[in-house]
């Protein structure tokens, strides 16, 4: 999916730039982008490292276990197969808590660890399991209670009431998350053992042999 999307974006951009005579701008940007990627990786990489360290400390102090008890009812609805107090469940809880508090930097390492734990239980680790997809979905939707960035920019732009958007943000987030989870749960019912999945396995295996 991502392979096709990235190729499509690049090809479409090339054709547009050719027709619109913006090849020069695009080329400049293209050459500058890899360095941007390094800057971005360093920026988020540092916070991922830092918060992974904090998370490990919190886990050894038993905080994550307490947290997972708190979120247990929600987790049993979203991830019915997940065992309570398992490493996966603790990572999911940390991720949810960090998301709600708006600690975006802290949520990513916890979420990634949760997905890694989910993938351990699958026969082919390169294919996302239903739980992993649900976890990714929860992170692509915004769980943040207070949209600090949007509010800060509104304040900067001279808004009379930067936080007046809160109820609307909650309503939109809730609807969006509900739609996403429903879609994922519905698709997972139909996707089970689909022939498509088996077909896509083969090229991957062949590639591994030739390498």
């Amino acid at each position, binding site marked *: 999916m991502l392979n096709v999307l990235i190729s499509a974006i690049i090809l479409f951009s090339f054709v547009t730039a050719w027709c619109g005579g913006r090849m020069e701008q695009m080329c400049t940007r293209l050459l500058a982008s890899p360095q941007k990627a390094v800057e971005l990786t360093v920026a988020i990489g540092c916070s991922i490292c830092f918060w*992974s360290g*904090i998370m490990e400390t919190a886990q050894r102090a038993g905080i994550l276990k307490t947290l997972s008890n708190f979120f247990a009812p929600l987790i049993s609805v979203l991830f019915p197969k997940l065992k309570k107090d398992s490493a996966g469940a603790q990572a999911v809880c940390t991720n949810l808590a960090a998301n709600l508090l708006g600690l975006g930097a802290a949520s990513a390492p916890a979420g990634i660890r949760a997905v890694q734990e989910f993938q351990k239980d699958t026969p082919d680790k390169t*294919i996302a399991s239903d739980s992993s997809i649900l976890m990714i979905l929860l992170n692509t939707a915004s769980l943040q209670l207070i949209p600090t960035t949007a509010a800060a920019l509104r304040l900067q732009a001279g808004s009379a009431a930067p936080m007046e*958007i809160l109820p609307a943000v909650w309503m939109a987030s809730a609807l969006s998350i509900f739609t*996403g989870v429903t879609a994922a749960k519905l698709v997972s019912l139909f996707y089970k053992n689909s022939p498509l999945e088996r077909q896509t396995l083969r090229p991957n295996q062949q590639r591994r042999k030739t390498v």
Partner: protein
Amino acid sequence: MSFLSNLVIPLVLCAIFGVALVQKVDILSAFSHGVLEGLKIVLDMFPALMLLTVAIGMFESSGALELLSRALSAPAVALGLPAELLPLTLLRPLSGSGALVVFENTLSQYGPDSLLGRIASVMMGSTETTFYTIALYCSAAGIKKSRYAAPASLCADLMGFCASVMAVRILLP
């Protein structure tokens, strides 16, 4: 507001270190172990991130974003999305910093308390950088086949955008 959000992170840190101290955890070794694990995640995700950054840079600078916004304005208006906010909705799932720039322009052009400004604010607050998140999680966890993750997430995003318009019309008349 900013005081409260400035308070949360230091408070979380103090709470964690306080409890760890009481529980007699070897804080330094736990922290180092976690950081090294984080470093592995960063190395795993770097290649995908680089490709995505290049692709999005091309998408923005080639004028493809504007072209696509213009082409999609008719179906968007049918869904209730204002055509002026299409660049924001198209860029939002792809690039966080790119969407922030477009959002800032929208606020200064239409005013933060106008209908469009409010809708844009709610859109920014209720959605995330979908493709970046999918690429990050999949590359960090070694997933090659993300199956229906992207369609399901985009479904949630589309609902988020439409719901933003609806929520502003209902709650902020």
